[in-house]
């Protein structure tokens, strides 16, 4: 039975193969801020789709944004979702910010489920953004400046979030590789504490940095 309480230094430990801690606030706060910026842009687009404002800011493509946001593709998605696609974008970006903000600076080990949920929110969102840009190009035939901005932000979020998701997945993979114990893997996923899990985490932390 271990009763060791981790020190502050442990909580902020760098995680190989990185020379930094991917769960540090300095890594996560920029993700949250950028996600909130994308959410605000999506609110602007949603207000137009709801008909609460008459025009969309677009310094590059003129009426292109309005064509995209009122296109048949957007209308079809509205029919399927029950809400406008821009509103779903607001929720998705808010989700990125919320899930990015929750958890301590060692959540890659303490709450892998939260990091993986964060990854599930961020990474598919990046893929959806690319798909929507392709829809603009090949289905609608118009471009929407702010949609392209949010798509670029989505891809940047994927790039920024990947390191933490990778570390959590590596931690879970190491547990499986060392123990082949489903119950232990389940405990690790939900962040339950256990001496064997602590030892695996320490082995991960003691790996050499590339």
């Amino acid at each position, binding site marked *: 039975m271990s*009763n060791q*309480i981790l020190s502050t230094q442990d*909580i902020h430990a760098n995680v190989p193969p990185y020379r930094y801690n991917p769960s540090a606030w300095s890594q996560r706060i920029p993700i949250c801020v950028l996600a909130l910026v994308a959410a605000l842009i999506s609110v602007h687009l949603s207000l137009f789709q709801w008909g609460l404002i008459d025009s969309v800011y677009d310094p590059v493509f003129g009426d292109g944004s309005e064509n995209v946001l009122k296109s048949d593709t957007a209308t079809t998605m509205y029919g399927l979702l*029950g809400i406008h696609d821009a509103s779903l974008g607001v929720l998705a970006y*808010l989700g990125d910010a919320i899930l990015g903000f929750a958890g301590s600076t060692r959540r890659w080990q303490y709450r892998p489920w939260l990091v993986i949920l964060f990854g599930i929110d961020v990474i598919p969102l990046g893929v959806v953004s690319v798909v929507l840009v392709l829809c603009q190009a090949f289905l609608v035939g118009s471009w929407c400046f702010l949609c392209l901005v949010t798509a670029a932000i989505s891809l940047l979020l994927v790039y920024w979030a990947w390191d933490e998701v990778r570390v959590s997945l590596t931690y879970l993979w190491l547990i499986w590789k060392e123990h082949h114990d489903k119950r232990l893997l389940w405990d690790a996923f939900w962040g339950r504490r*256990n001496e064997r899990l602590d030892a695996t985490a320490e082995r991960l932390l003691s790996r050499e940095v590339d």
Partner: protein
Amino acid sequence: MWGRVVEIMTAVWLAVSPFVFGVQDNGTLLWADIGIASLIWLFSGLSYWRPTRHAHLLILLVSAGLVLWGRFAEIPPTPAHQNHIVVGLFLMMIAVIPNQASLPPQAWRHGESQA
């Protein structure tokens, strides 16, 4: 406990939303929204008490019901029902946030470990 605070504030929005969307004369919508908001207040409030600290997870069920009601009650959904879809999806994200989410879980704070 910021997740619980956000849930409580979102429930306030849900309770007043029939008036915002001008459907306060529809008794079903009005009382359903107030009832659902009350459930969210209850589950969030119970999460502050240690024996029922996981009560916020029940909001997942409430919010899933809210999304389904909003999506299928009327097709296409009216603005009031679109609000239900948006609020439901938002609450789903918030409800999974643990209490004291910015701190390590209790086991690490108090040094409890199972051999």
